[in-house]
């Protein structure tokens, strides 16, 4: 399969070079270990917010580094969580003495590497708080799994924590707000085809023409269920039903934020068609879609699919969502 690469081995490093070359006013890239950091970090008196994960999900996380969102991001190899070294170096580069919130998606590899980094940093007196994102209702949260995966809510947590840090909240407050977003978010994704892995040139799983993966992961891993292909409205209905059913009886009320992200090859037309149905669905449930974000913000290489996230807002979360942000991929208010 043809792609716009020079070599599978240089995909990540060349892309990071490109990001650095096109955003010199915003961020800088460090190598060995690799991380991207705000040019103006550490910001005196402010809590730092650091995230990271495997590459292949762009613009998450590298596109979210900047004032009002992440202080630094640690991009691992493709679909491979960053090393503990990367996380440690990134935190050391941006921590201003007020501590650092680590936004970690709940995948074994991410959890373990961030944990190792946190241990090393703690031993050296650098305070960190971890916000573990585990919003994917496709995965049963039981002792029989590693727990729910972190997906779309990650972007929301990063925005809210970044805004809280920017206004001067304490380490404990920023972490609490991040955990509040986690507690009030649920997500689900589905895919019509998997992404193409650069190293092999093949799709990470193959689907027949009349089937889809429901509850798909964003790391090329298959979903929990293979289902017949249906018109997109029916797929959105099914996803929304699963998301809404997962909230506690009285948790789902009032204003919500709807986040629709294309997973790679979904066109803006397709994302809008999905958003249309999702808004209508929430409307019918008596909820008000007070905020929304629609586009390809968390991807899985060139996977054809979407992921839907519902976050139940409160006043504070809405305010932090609206706060100015300036990153490569998300920007408003400045």
């Amino acid at each position: 399969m043809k792609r716009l690469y020079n070599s599978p081995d240089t995909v990540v490093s060349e892309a990071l070079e490109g990001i650095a070359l096109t955003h010199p006013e915003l961020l800088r890239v460090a190598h060995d270990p690799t991380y991207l950091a705000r040019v103006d970090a550490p910001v005196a008196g402010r809590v730092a917010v650091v995230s990271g994960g495997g590459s292949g999900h762009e613009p998450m996380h590298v596109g979210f580094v900047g004032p009002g969102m992440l202080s630094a991001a640690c991009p691992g190899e493709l679909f491979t969580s960053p090393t503990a070294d990367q996380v440690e170096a990134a935190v050391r580069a941006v921590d201003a003495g007020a501590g650092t919130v680590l936004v970690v998606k709940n995948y074994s590899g991410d959890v373990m590497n961030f944990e190792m980094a946190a241990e090393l940093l703690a031993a050296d007196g650098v305070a960190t708080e971890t916000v573990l994102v585990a919003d994917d209702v496709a995965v049963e949260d039981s002792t029989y799994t590693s727990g729910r995966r972190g997906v779309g809510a990650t972007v929301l947590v990063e925005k809210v924590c970044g805004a809280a840090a920017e206004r001067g909240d304490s380490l404990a407050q920023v972490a609490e707000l991040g955990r509040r977003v986690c507690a009030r978010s649920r997500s689900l994704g589905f895919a019509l085809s998997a992404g193409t892995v650069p190293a092999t040139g093949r799709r990470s799983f193959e689907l027949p023409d009349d089937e889809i993966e429901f509850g798909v992961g964003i790391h090329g891993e298959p979903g929990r269920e293979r289902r017949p292909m249906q018109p997109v409205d029916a797929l959105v209905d099914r996803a929304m039903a699963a998301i809404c059913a997962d909230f506690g009886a009285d948790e789902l009320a009032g204003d919500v934020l709807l986040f629709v992200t294309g997973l790679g090859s979904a066109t803006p037309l397709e994302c809008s068609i999905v958003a249309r149905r999702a808004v209508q669905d929430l409307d019918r449930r008596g909820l008000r879609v007070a905020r929304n974000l629609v586009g390809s913000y968390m991807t899985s290489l060139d996977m054809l699919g979407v992921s839907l996230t519902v976050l139940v807002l409160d006043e504070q979360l809405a305010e932090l969502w609206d706060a100015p942000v300036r990153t490569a991929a998300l920007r408003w208010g400045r």
Partner: protein
Amino acid sequence: MADRLSATDLTAVFADFQRAVERDRDLLTELDTAVGDGDHGTNLDRGMRAAVEALAAIPQDTPGGVFNLVGRRLVSTVGGASGALYGTAFLRAARAAGAAEALDAATCTAVLRDATTGIAERGKCATGDKTMYDVWMAASTAAAAAAGDGLPALLAAASTAAGAAEQEMVPWQARRGRASYLGERSKDHRDPGAVSSRLLFGCFAAWADA
């Protein structure tokens, strides 16, 4: 008889493991494609190359030094679950090996036990979860039982148990790591980390056998 494992011996074993991973890289990646994200082969290959390069650049005097360097390089270069798990295992092994010039059967048993415990702690996993931990636990238990028979027998027993465990768990349902997301669909697949771990114990046995 290879009754004690020196730093040189251990360096040779890791070089052998690096070659084994390189050779079976595509197999490991393919297994990981079926139940995970298809990177276990490339992950471990990248890490072991870096580890072997480091051992060549900074030769070590003690097995503990070798374990430490390999563990640190894995932690720095692999990422993913296996980077943290293998890294933690070897760093714990280094601590257990201490400053000893060479490892005998008794020390080897302790080294293996501590490394295995490290995996459990880092991975928050238990036996039966269908991860590399099952293989390490099987190897560690067999090694402890064979500790009285000398180092070669110990390593042979560990390798045999590792191989048996890797086979035995194939029908199980995964409860940790990416494969666990598949639920029932993870059954009847080989666990990539279990297979690479089995390769590692095979390399130790081959050294003892040579």
